[in-house]
């Protein structure tokens, strides 16, 4: 049994049909990349898994529980944690409060010290308001919030988007480290190269359909697919 299973899910946004029978799985300890062009349904998939959107049909299962149809906080309580593409740092509270907020409901949260060890930059900024952080710092904080909850699956939605290359490199290192520690990660990334560096396995989405499941090596061997679906 896979840790996370998405089974023939159809999701609507208002009246528009976004995901068509999307199925995928993520095994324990695996890093899976979700690839596809803009508007192919990657973020919608993440939101469906997190419970922000409820599928009209199909099921999402996590560690044997059916989680589709449940509230985000319940899903988070089971150990799924989304790091949203817009980061959603709470702007009106401090960095430390952002972390405390995330830690409240976790079963065995990391200590703040451990987080600050992983992200020293955040410690320097701990009493700053969320709104004053730079983009890279925000992304760090967003990932840190998920880590402090010790989530079993991290859903990283476009973690590298809009960041300076040097920061991307840093974050990539951090993410690699997390993966090497055996953390399960589902990552959505426009930056295909970065995603392929990290992932054990990939799914390619196009117009709401899963069109391909492949290893990074297989995918790189098929420039036609890369070009057609990923624009690379």
């Amino acid at each position, binding site marked *: 049994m896979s840790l996370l299973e998405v089974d023939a899910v159809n999701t609507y946004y208002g009246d528009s049909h976004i995901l068509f029978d999307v199925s995928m799985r993520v095994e324990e300890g695996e890093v899976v990349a979700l690839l596809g062009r803009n508007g192919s349904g990657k973020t919608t998939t993440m939101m469906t898994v*997190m419970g*922000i959107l409820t599928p009209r049909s199909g099921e999402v299962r996590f560690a044997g529980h059916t989680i589709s149809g449940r*509230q*985000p*906080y319940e899903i*988070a*309580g089971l150990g799924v*944690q*989304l790091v*949203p593409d817009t980061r*959603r740092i*709470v*702007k*009106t*509270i401090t960095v430390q*409060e*952002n972390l*405390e*907020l*995330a830690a*409240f*409901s*976790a079963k065995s949260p990391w200590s703040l010290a451990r987080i600050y060890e992983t992200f020293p930059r955040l410690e320097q900024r701990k009493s700053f308001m*969320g*709104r004053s952080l730079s983009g890279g710092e925000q992304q760090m904080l967003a990932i840190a*919030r998920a880590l402090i*909850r010790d989530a079993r699956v991290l859903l990283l939605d476009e973690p590298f988007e809009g960041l300076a290359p040097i920061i991307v490199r840093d974050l990539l290192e951090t993410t690699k480290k997390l993966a090497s520690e055996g953390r399960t990660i589902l990552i959505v990334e426009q930056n295909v190269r970065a995603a392929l560096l990290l992932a054990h396995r990939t799914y390619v989405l196009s117009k709401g359909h899963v069109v391909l499941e492949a290893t990074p090596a297989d995918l790189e061997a098929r420039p036609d697919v890369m070009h057609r679906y990923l624009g690379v």
Partner: protein
Amino acid sequence: MHLIEAQALNGLALGAVLSLVALGLTIVFGLLGFVNFAHGALFMVGAYAGWVVYSQTENFFLAMVAALVVTFIVGLVIERVLIRMYYRRPPEDQILVTYGLAIILVEIVRAIFTGVTRQMPTPAWAAGTVQLAGIFYPQYRLVLIVIAAVTLAILYVVLFRTRIGLIVRAGIDDALIVNILGVNVNRTFLLVFALGAAIAGFSGIVDAPLLAVNPDMGTDLLVQSFVVVVIGGVGSFFGAILGGLIAGEIISLTTAFAADYSSVALYAAMALVLIVRPQGLLGVEGRA
């Protein structure tokens, strides 16, 4: 000259009550994302709950407790029965349902207690006047300033020094991420709605010795507290206080010079704030 100071003091007392009422409104608005048009009705319900207890016991503290408890419970019930269904609906629907709710609350109170204005006297221990720099000033108004200040201080501690306060403040900015981070926001919504109702009810009872206690007493105050929220900035704790004080001073000081225009001046000030700083004096940009 000393009359101007007295008017400033009047403004402070009026502003204190307005701040309190507006705070309840702004917290609910900030977190739940909609303005509670039944806030004025809850203010009235609080006054009536307090009056019922006061007329039995003649104890103003018990009356305050009753107002708090009753409106808190009314808030819980309303959220569970009605408001809950509206979280996923457009904000316009949410306004409308609270508008309908306001009618229902007012008419229920009228049906139970009739339209006769109820007698809510000044508590005996605060009925006198004190002499301040040569002018006589009602003790109860000073008490009112103190009650409002203490209540605001308690709310400050709750909001800024407790876990639930952190959740509320975060939720005001972004309720979804709080949900994603594993916090049961529904429970928080319930609590905050009831808290907002209780603040309204509490304001109702502490303001009752100044007002005519009747079913329609909340209407004017509702609109004034909207103005306070607009001036101060939605969802902002200090915005509500600042807005309340500004509104109170505008009303009192204009009255001293041109009574005809005291209400007009309030709305003109609101328009001015909107032109200069649309998000309100202490509001965060990009909200609402």
